[in-house]
């Protein structure tokens, strides 16, 4: 089953066209890595999926439900705010800058949205949140404030916070790019674990080793287009496009 279907997505910032007709389908349980030079539109693409950015043209379908599509005149129409919110919270997102809530402890960061958005009772969500914290190895930090955590710990809390909403799809936007090199491992490990549990994942990353090892499909984007996609072996061992080859060379 397709978890996600994008058709001909166009996105402009003023006169700058940042996405130039992206089409993409992601199957359930698939891990897709998106690589490409900075400024190529990778973040914008992820952000269009959960309407952090509004697309100008195209169709977005999440788990068979339409989020945005074109009307008969070719104008892009979104479903109602309420409906869009319900569709979008099936997608968890992890940001490069963590974006934890600094005024809440780790455990409160995790339980806030399930209680507020889904109306789950506190005593029911606490055990689940603790379980998630154990999973990312941070149970002993549950009463700490985010400012007391290292970058790697913050990002693992952010992953647990997203998972607490029981998403079907997880989006990662360069989750390790803000981290000191020695802290990326712990975050990648948590992500690898998720992949093993067959979470559908779209990961924008500069970690080529991770993409090669964990992703089933690698997409190379440049200048608002998908230039090439394929299995990690295809992309990393025998890329066809000159731009892919040049990019991979620069990453060595």
């Amino acid at each position, binding site marked *: 089953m397709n978890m996600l279907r994008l058709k001909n997505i166009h996105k402009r910032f003023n006169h700058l066209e940042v996405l130039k007709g992206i089409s993409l389908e992601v199957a359930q349980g698939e891990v897709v890595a998106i690589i490409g030079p900075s400024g190529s539109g990778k973040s914008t693409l992820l952000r269009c999926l959960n309407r952090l950015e509004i697309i100008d043209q195209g169709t977005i379908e999440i788990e068979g439900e339409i989020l945005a599509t074109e009307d008969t005149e070719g104008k892009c129409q979104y479903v109602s705010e309420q409906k869009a919110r319900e569709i979008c919270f099936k997608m968890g997102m992890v940001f490069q800058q963590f974006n934890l*809530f600094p005024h809440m402890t780790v455990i409160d960061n995790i339980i806030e949205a399930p209680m507020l958005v889904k109306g789950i009772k506190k005593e029911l969500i606490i055990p689940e949140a603790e379980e998630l914290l154990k999973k990312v190895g941070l149970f002993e930090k549950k009463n700490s404030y985010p400012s007391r955590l290292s970058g790697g710990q913050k990002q693992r809390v952010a992953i647990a916070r997203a998972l607490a909403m029981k998403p079907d799809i997880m989006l990662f936007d360069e989750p390790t790019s803000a981290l000191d090199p020695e802290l990326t491992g712990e975050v990648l490990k948590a992500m690898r674990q998720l992949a093993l549990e067959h979470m559908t994942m779209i990961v924008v990353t500069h970690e080529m080793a991770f993409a090669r090892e964990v992703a089933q499909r690698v997409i190379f984007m440049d200048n608002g287009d998908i230039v090439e996609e394929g299995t990690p072996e295809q992309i990393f061992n025998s890329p066809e496009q000159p731009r892919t080859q040049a990019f991979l060379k620069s990453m060595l």
Partner: protein
Amino acid sequence: MEKIITMMGPMLDGVNVTLQMFFITLVLSLPLGLLLSLARISKYKPISLLVETYIWLMRGTPLMLQLLFVYYALPLVPYIGIKLPDFSAAILAFVLNYAAYFAEIFRGGIQSIERGQYEASKVLGMTYVQTMRRIILPQVLKRVVPPISNETITLVKDTSLIYVLAMNDLLRTARTIVQREFDMTPFVIAAVFYLAMTLVLTWIFNKLEERYAAYDE
């Protein structure tokens, strides 16, 4: 000594007026300021423009003038013109004025919160109202404690402006006694009261800051 005790009766009445002005203004203008700040950052241009103009008017003219306007000019406005009792007129002018200042403080606080906080909330499925109430405003409160504290201490002293409406607040009472008895003691007593009030306020706001220090940013 005996003289001081006889002065204390009217002086305490004056303190009472001053304290009432202070508390009622504060209790009304803080929430009004918050509402105004939300309107000021609203996506609906007419609303935000209206509030912007209002804030400009309130901050761009002296409080004294606004006080006199509400008292003397408002009753003359056709149809809606009403003659308010002294105290209500003073409260109205103070609340309208202070709400404008508080609105700008809240707006600054709200706009200082990183965009990522809104994005994380949105991605987790929160509505705008939920995001403001649970994520943004609690962080704003921490950031606005120092400027609100300043403004509140200014309010203590600004209350003395109501002497123009012939209301017997602390300062006017002191002046009346001084003029009658040719004795400067009431001024000293008044100064001590103002200082005591600002001392208490400073202490309260320090406590608030300490409480919010539980988390750093």
